[in-house]
């Protein structure tokens, strides 16, 4: 039985799925941007950024990317298992 409410739900589902894939596509760009930020840091031995801080920043970015990547790939995986064709 097809009622209008069901249809809306399905379309919204498809919409979410596409935005999820957009997220997946943008993630490496976000990573590249965040890891390119150190280019702006001063290399001045006196007034620059300490290596310790740099390490913390770079590994924090890494953790975020891994976390987000895991979340997204889990969601995409659930989608791919439920519906393979609509993703390609």
């Amino acid at each position, binding site marked *: 039985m097809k009622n209008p409410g069901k249809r809306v739900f399905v379309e919204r589902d498809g919409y979410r799925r596409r935005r999820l894939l957009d997220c997946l596509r943008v993630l490496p760009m976000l*990573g590249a941007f965040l890891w390119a930020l*150190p280019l702006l840091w001063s290399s001045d031995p006196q007034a620059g950024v*300490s*290596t310790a801080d740099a*390490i913390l920043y770079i590994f924090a970015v*890494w953790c975020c990317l*891994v976390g987000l*990547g895991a979340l997204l790939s889990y969601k995409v995986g659930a989608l791919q298992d439920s519906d393979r064709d609509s993703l390609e």
Partner: protein
Amino acid sequence: MGALNVLVAVCLCYVAFLFIVAFAAERSALRGNGAWLRSPLVYTLSLSIYCTAWTFYGAVGYAARSGLEYLTIYIGPSLVMIGWWWILRKLVRIGRSQRITSIADLISSRYGKSNTLAIFVTILAVIGTTPYIALQLQSVTLSFNVFAQSQAGADTDVLRETTAFWVALGLALFTILFGTRNLDVNERHHGVVMAIAVEAVVKLFALLAVGVFVVWGLSGGVGNMLDRIETSEIGMWQMQGGRWVSLIFLSAAAFLCLPRMFQVMVVENENEGNLRTASWAFPAYLMLMSLFVVPIAVVGLDVLPKGANPDLFVLTVPLASGQEGLAVISFLGGFSSATSMVIVAAIALSTMVSNHVVMPIWLAVTGHGASFSGDVRKVVILSRRLSIAGVLILGYLYYRLSGGGTALALIGLISFAGVAQFLPALIGGIFWRGATRTGALAGLTVGFVVWTYAMLLPGFGQGTILPTSVFESGPFGIGWLRPQAFFGIQGMDPLVHAILWSISLNSAAFFVASLLSFPNPLERLQGAQFVNVFDHSQNPQSWSGGMAQSEDLMIMAQRILGAREAQRLFEREAKRQGIQGVLPETTPEFLQVLERELAGSVGAATAHAMVGQIVGGASVSVRDLMAVADETAQMMEYSSQLETKSAELTRTARQLRLANEKLMQVSHQKDAFLSQISHELRTPMTSIRAFSEILREGGLSDAEQEKYATVIHSEAIRLTRLLDDLLDLSVLENGQVSLNLRKVQLSDLLDTAISSALSGVQTSLLKIRRDQAQEKYAFTTDPDRLSQVFINLISNAQKYCDGDRPVLRIETMEQDGRLLVDFIDNGSGIPRESQDLIFEKFSRVSPQKAGGAGLGLAICREIMVRLKGEINYLPGQGGAAFRVSLPLRQVNENAE
């Protein structure tokens, strides 16, 4: 020597353990319960062969020399993995759908299964990888030396030579044993993959163990460690932006292009879902691998004497702290990194060398190649084993000749930049359909030349291979060609310089040559196949199989796939075609399947060539493709013919149906007419009889007598007219009429017709509009007959036009030598369903207005046929409209 002996013993135990792991994995895969071998975890861990001894030892040295720059080597691959949806997903899909065996196979397949390109890529890969293998041997030797030096009296020189030799030999043995166990690369090397997954765990554990020891054991926790880092030599962020970006790019490119990475990432991939997990798990692995590098480097710089090799801090720091056990673990980690890389690199390279260099040469040397009797399987396996040995010998020789002095990181980067030259051809090939073989060759050549000249040769040191003068004033004094200052741009970091120019000139050459060249049909088909791999994951290239002999193919396939495998394949295909027995028809589909199966063993180019030899074409010819294209064109033509025929049939059927309907209607009309005509005849007869009886009885006044006589007379006239019409029609239909041809003026004819049509009517409302000037046509016809037609049309209008103010327009024109006379009134016209019937005999549009027997228009049509003209109903004129057309010229000719 005690500790050293223990070390050797541990090492041998570890190797034995790896053999057992690999063997067990092969066994369980054979038994079919190897699902866990294909788990995402194993896939992710197998990717860790990216982290070689260079990473294990070299990263710390790198960090000690240039601070955080070492991170670039891990950041690049992390970004590629995180962005798997863009590139890796496509690569893996292509690899699976085309049964790609190596990166050389991928590039050659994409560009029309070109063997030239495959050989070129193979040679580049060997040149790029050999130093890297040498590097692994060197690192194992160096690490052995560290232990040896801690022992008094060990002969380090002898150790240097023998260690590398035994390691190379052991690796060759392992690789040959587990790497060439099965021929079909797509059946995957479960044993090898499992072994390197275990090694991945060992090296991660080793590095983490040393790191934990350094941070918590030697520095007293994270806070203290960070302070120690700040106060160390590398305490401040000092980074050249150019190097940061170039190295991230370089490592990302190398991650995609390294033959060994391609092997584990694409060829050994069992399931696309594994990539999804690895997309985040592998960056996490890399993060952990790089986490303790800086602490180890800082502590090493602190603790160890000046001049200690920073590349070995991972070993020397635990040793200096008296942690021999930890040092052994660390040694095993380095050993694992080195061996896993060498094993996979040797498999990847040997696949390429054997498929693209040895097999084509063997096929060419043995003349008929595929038709030659003997087991090709053995040849392929032998060539692959020899290639593995050859690759390792090359690596060993390079190690011996170079003396093993250069800093580890430098060799690694040179090697990275070398294989990164594949990037434009690879990425262009899977995203741009316009990329051609010529473009790929041009790009690779330019990139390789620039890389050799600006990076590889200078890497040996100024004055070693390139004389110092070349660096100062360029070759032959050409200043803008100085190897580290192209186009006179000085002051650039040599590494950034080499990467920038090699990749950009490579891409430019690839792009321009692709634009200027024209791909052959196979290239274009493959190009579409690769770029649109998600649209249709099947091979478009097919054979025209007319000439091929199934039996020959069977013989060849048995020699490559093995008898049982080949027979199973053939039987399956035969069943699919619905044929009894084992020999299927050599349809293009079957040949395609067969070729792809063979490609898994010997590579796409060779498989294509072998099938080609048997199918008839000596090589991959355009003719084959054209034949396929022709076939397709014929099919399309045939199908369009069928379509036309079916449309024709539909039309005929429709016409028949219409005719049938008309017949039915006519038959109904006839029935209706018979009752009508009886009625028509009976009504006047009845009144004639009645009135004649009254007259016969007599006793009537004169006026009455005359009145009744008039009725009788007019009824008799009506009867006569009816009979006249019937007679007239029958005469006309039988062609017995004789025409009385005369030269007449159209306007005169119309004048008489109008006056006679309207004469009997007392109060005619009908207005007639005509343009006398238009009617100046003189022609020869039977004026009586033609005016009979006109009179009929005009009186029809007069009788049936139901407009408020009825108007009849008579329009005349000449068209294509015919005279057209239109009679158009402003009534409601004739309904569509009656238009077909009005010219039939006895048809009347509205019975209630019955004025005649419905013969008028039928007579008109017969007259017009006799006069070689036509009368038609003209729909869409706003009322009833009839067109009378007469051949003007012919009539004129007749008159002369």
